[in-house]
């Protein structure tokens, strides 16, 4: 399974390196989202300061939907999905590979967004240990849920609109937990954030385990 995961992740990252879709389209979209929030809330600087953690994670969530649509779009484009089913690759390995590639892309995106909130919103990035401990499990949770619903939606005609409708409500707990944890880190009260980071880790673990178990039937029946 791990060999299969490495193969799929390597292929997806190679696709990104060759096409630069995440770098050229998803990252600018995420930054544009930050800019628009900034423009909308700038008249009241206090609101923007308070909302920075939430706006950061909303930008991440919206961008992750685009990244997942891209990730499964390439499989649906010319019948590659059928060939994945025909291959000797384990469904759990395919899920972990897709998840791994998505996590790498989202982490790069989030690094850019952190710079964005520092520059555009004037946020002072403190509490790095908690920030990292929030970003890693939250990103894994977002990628796991998105990958799970990505394969579910890919076989459907209205997948572009269906995927956000399916994934975003499920990701609401990640948005809440990651926002609370970021608020604590940026406010210099990290002790209040660690329980949220723990919950995010549990959420990510649950969805990764569910994904490994359910990916076979989902790949089969959609």
């Amino acid at each position, binding site marked *: 399974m791990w060999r299969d995961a490495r193969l799929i992740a390597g*292929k997806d990252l190679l*696709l990104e390196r*060759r096409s630069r879709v995440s770098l050229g389209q998803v990252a600018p979209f995420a930054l544009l989202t930050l800019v628009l929030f900034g423009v909308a809330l700038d008249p009241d600087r206090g609101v923007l300061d308070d909302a920075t953690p939430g706006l950061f994670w909303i930008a991440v969530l919206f961008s992750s939907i685009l990244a997942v649509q891209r990730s499964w779009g*390439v499989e649906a484009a*010319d019948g*590659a999905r059928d*060939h994945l089913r025909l291959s000797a690759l384990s469904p759990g390995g395919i899920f972990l590979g897709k998840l791994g590639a998505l996590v790498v892309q989202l982490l790069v995106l989030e690094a850019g967004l952190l710079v964005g909130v520092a520059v555009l919103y004037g946020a002072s990035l403190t509490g790095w240990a908690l920030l990292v401990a929030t970003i890693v499990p939250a990103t894994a949770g977002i990628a796991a849920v998105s990958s799970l619903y990505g394969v579910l939606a890919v076989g459907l005609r209205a997948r572009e609109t269906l995927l956000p409708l399916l994934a975003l409500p499920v990701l609401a707990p990640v948005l809440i937990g990651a926002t609370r944890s970021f608020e604590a880190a940026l406010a210099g009260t990290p002790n209040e954030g660690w329980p949220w980071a723990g919950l995010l880790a549990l959420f990510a673990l649950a969805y990764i385990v569910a994904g490994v178990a359910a990916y076979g039937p989902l790949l089969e029946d959609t």
Partner: protein
Amino acid sequence: MEPVIDLRAAVSLLGRFPALAGVDLHVDPREIVVLHGPNGAGKTTLLRLCAGLASLAGGTGRVLGCDLRADRRAVRARVGLLGHQSGLYEELTVADNVDFWARAAGAYAEDAAAAMERLGLAGRLRDVAVARLSAGQKRRTSLACLVAQRPELWLLDEPHAGLDADGRDLLDDLLRSAAAAGATVVLASHEHDRTAGLSSRIVTLVGGVVADDTAAPALDRLVPAPPTSGVDDVA
């Protein structure tokens, strides 16, 4: 000798429509069988059923000894399917694609390199993105992926489509070599003249059932005796 394909009254549904409405088909090892029939006769569904991609809704079916009703996934890693879609990643190069699908099938980089050489893709096309290839070149790349996987059962849907004269000759040689090396080939085609000289049997499908099943006319068109080295010679 156990048949490679053994379908009895096989039914497969596309939604509620019976694309296969009771197919009886028996294919022995090393045969090259051509499926003829009008559009919508069920040729593609039959190939997908044999690949374990379409489900068996009625009748019985075994492919490479695997029961299609009980565990159709078991057969998948042992068959190679060339369908209407290329199965290629447009942004990746020819070499990237062949290498990936070879590894996904448990084959090695050497198998991918040999397959590209065999299909004439090892030169200037090797590092070209698939998106920039012509339809025929894409077809060759898909075939190279198939060759690199060294399947026991080759399932091909209109494999000559898009290929130039050299490519068609190359494909025919490839299929004969595969059968000679121990593989079994089933291909769907509308090109009766071309496939008549290639196949050992012609099966005609009409309305989801086998309307005719006849041996190819000339004995010298049958594949030669198998070597002892398995299917490795194909690539």
